[in-house]
């Protein structure tokens, strides 16, 4: 078969299509977004009506995928690492209930925080839920693992996590496909108690999960994704997880002198690790993310410091790995002939010229200019987070999706006079609605600005499920209709916007201001796309 040139994300998507999924459920988030987008633009998905619409957030995505699995069909859930926190409740419980149709949970981690607020390592979640985790080192493995993960999930009766990282997700390489498999027929569990996690059932299901650990372990020991490469020099033994393997081999093009255990499947293959530990003077653990494996093997005390890696300090504790960092861990020299000249300035991202968020911030800054420390603005996650940077310097907080409204509420509860939340339309429906309800319930004096550009722009302009309904949602949640104010954010409307914002921040209750203008970047992109068709 011909090689396809695919991003890691696209390889995962193609594998899921070939493995016969009936649906993908996801909320966009870098670096996971392109998985779902690939399926959305696939002819096969359209022809076979494979579910591919965006979900409101990661939790709803995971739950819907569980529903599809309940009905016997294969489903895939995709999200970025912080999305796993949002989906954590159904995710943890899916390991208790188990699945019927194969369910693959793709977690895309972002070490070095290229587009994220932390670099948490999803392998911990896999271990926490006690389910198998697969971690590819290249695009072909991403394909093969995703394809096989569905079989593994059905064989064991549990969800399987596929953990990828930014570098793999957004790197392209040749991929060979496997045979296409038909979708599952609608069918249900033989056990009517399986999905009813009342304590009486859940205790039984949990015992089943515990008992299955042995099978998962045995499968890992025998897995072709965990391979041993012998080496002559026993002064070091290397454990290379996922993509870290590439950085190792980049430095040893003619073959690694040390024995290497390449890890692609968890739980860790205990026997292979024990053998390596015994036969070598020192273990070097190369892993992208947190020092999970290093800590597991070294334990709390790591007596004799035999296990080294990010924790011991031979590799940096934070940030993404690369060939240079791994070279340094082995004392190999990199040749740097030229330094970056001093004239090179950082070029941070910025709001596009002409973006409606700009007009919103200009008006907001003017409206609160006189209040000084008595006013604070709680930001949220999206393009408008860039309002923190000059020239606006408008934000005092940004924690997680939806937190703008609830943090503003808490600060108002604490006595802050002017608590303003700035949130995007997609983030509002992702997890701002329940926050707003909390404020309405107590009539907390906060002002919420939903800066509506009718898409999730930061992640590439995906549809926003609240489009056209934001006023109705706010009214439905109980915000007084006269304190729901829609605006058109344009320079010429600046004075009117300032006036409205001033009025509402001086109202001692919940108000919502909705400046609405389509994202010009998305408009431009759509125009170019339609010109090309």
């Amino acid at each position: 078969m011909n090689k396809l040139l695919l991003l890691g994300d696209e390889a995962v998507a193609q594998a899921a299509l070939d493995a016969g999924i009936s649906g993908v459920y996801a909320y966009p988030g870098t670096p996971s977004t392109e998985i779902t987008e690939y399926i959305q633009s696939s002819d096969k998905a359209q022809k076979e009506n494979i579910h591919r619409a965006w979900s409101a957030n990661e939790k709803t995505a995971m739950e819907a995928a569980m529903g599809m699995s309940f009905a016997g069909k294969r489903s895939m859930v995709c999200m970025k690492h912080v999305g796993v926190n949002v989906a954590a409740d159904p995710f943890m419980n899916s390991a208790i209930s188990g699945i019927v149709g194969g369910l693959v949970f793709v977690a895309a981690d972002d070490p070095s925080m290229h587009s994220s607020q932390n670099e948490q390592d999803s392998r911990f979640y896999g271990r926490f839920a006690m389910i198998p985790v697969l971690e590819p080192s290249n695009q072909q493995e991403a394909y093969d693992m995703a394809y096989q993960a569905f079989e593994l999930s059905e064989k064991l009766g549990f969800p399987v996590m596929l953990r990828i990282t930014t570098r793999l997700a957004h790197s392209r390489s040749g991929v060979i496909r496997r045979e296409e498999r038909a979708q599952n027929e609608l069918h249900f569990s033989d056990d009517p108690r399986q999905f009813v996690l009342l304590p009486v059932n859940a205790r039984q299901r949990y015992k089943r999960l515990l008992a299955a650990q042995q099978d998962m372990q045995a499968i890992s020991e025998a897995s072709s994704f965990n391979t041993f490469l012998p080496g002559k020099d026993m002064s070091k033994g290397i454990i290379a997880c996922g993509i870290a393997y590439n950085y190792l081999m980049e430095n040893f093009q003619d073959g690694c002198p040390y024995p290497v255990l390449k890890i692609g499947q968890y739980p860790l293959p205990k026997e292979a690790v024990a053998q390596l530990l015994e036969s070598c003077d020192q273990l070097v653990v190369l892993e992208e993310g947190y020092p999970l494996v290093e800590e597991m093997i070294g334990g709390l005390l790591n007596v004799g410091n035999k296990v080294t890696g990010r924790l011991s300090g031979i590799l940096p504790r934070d940030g993404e790995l690369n060939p240079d960092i791994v070279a340094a861990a082995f004392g190999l020299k990199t040749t740097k002939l030229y330094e970056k000249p001093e004239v090179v300035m950082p070029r941070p991202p910025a709001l596009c010229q002409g973006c409606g968020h700009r007009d919103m911030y200009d008006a907001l800054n003017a409206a609160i200019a006189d209040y000084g420390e008595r006013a604070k603005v709680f930001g949220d996650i999206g393009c408008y987070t860039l309002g923190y940077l000059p020239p606006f310097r408008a934000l005092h907080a940004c924690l997680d999706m939806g937190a703008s409204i609830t943090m503003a509420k808490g600060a108002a509860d604490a006595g802050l006079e002017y608590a303003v939340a700035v949130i995007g339309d997609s983030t509002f429906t992702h997890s701002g609605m329940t926050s707003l309800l909390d404020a309405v319930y107590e009539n907390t004096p906060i002002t919420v600005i939903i800066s509506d550009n009718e898409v999730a722009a930061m992640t590439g302009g995906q549809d926003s499920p609240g489009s056209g309904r934001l006023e109705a949602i706010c009214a439905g949640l109980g915000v007084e209709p006269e304190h729901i104010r829609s605006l058109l954010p344009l320079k010429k409307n600046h004075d009117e916007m300032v006036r409205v914002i001033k009025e509402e921040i001086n109202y001692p209750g919940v108000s919502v201001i909705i400046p609405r203008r389509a994202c010009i970047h998305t408009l431009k992109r759509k125009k170019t796309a339609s010109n090309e068709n």
Partner: protein
Amino acid sequence: MKIDIILAGVGGQGILSIAAVIGEAALNQGLFMKQSEVHGMSQRGGDVQSNLRISDQAIYSDLIPTGKADLVLALEPMEALRYLSFLSVDGWLVSNSVPYVNIPNYPEEEKLQESISGFQRKVILDVDSIAREAGSVRAANMVLLGAASPFLQLDYSGLEQAVRHIFGRKGETVVELNLKALSMGKAIAEQVLKP
């Protein structure tokens, strides 16, 4: 055979269309390739780069190590300089000469020129003007690619074929325009390379 390229520019300039043409030409020659891209936040007018690796052997790392790049190919001069530390002993710098100023502390033109002129193996050209001469500024990327073509170790006809394929659905005029832009860029590089 191995060639490691760092493509650099500003989010929105379209460095990835250059990578697409090189990548297709390389695959058609039966070579291995890996190409890492920047998606997400930086695309909003920030600095973006792509690591493109081509080889007749399997490639491990998606990222090019420091001091190993054969070519830095940039649509913007300050962005070209950002990746100098990646260039190898015989590495070349091929860059657009026209600054893209979207930050308040962008270096003064003179200082920028000084930095660039200190570097020997380079092809610096005004891709926009040349593209305009070829028929449209929209072909600027192909001018730059043309200027890089002597360093790519790929058949020039393979690049032409990839251009034909990639721009094919936009019609014959667009294909011809881009081929012309490609050859004009190539001519300039060949001029520089003349002993």
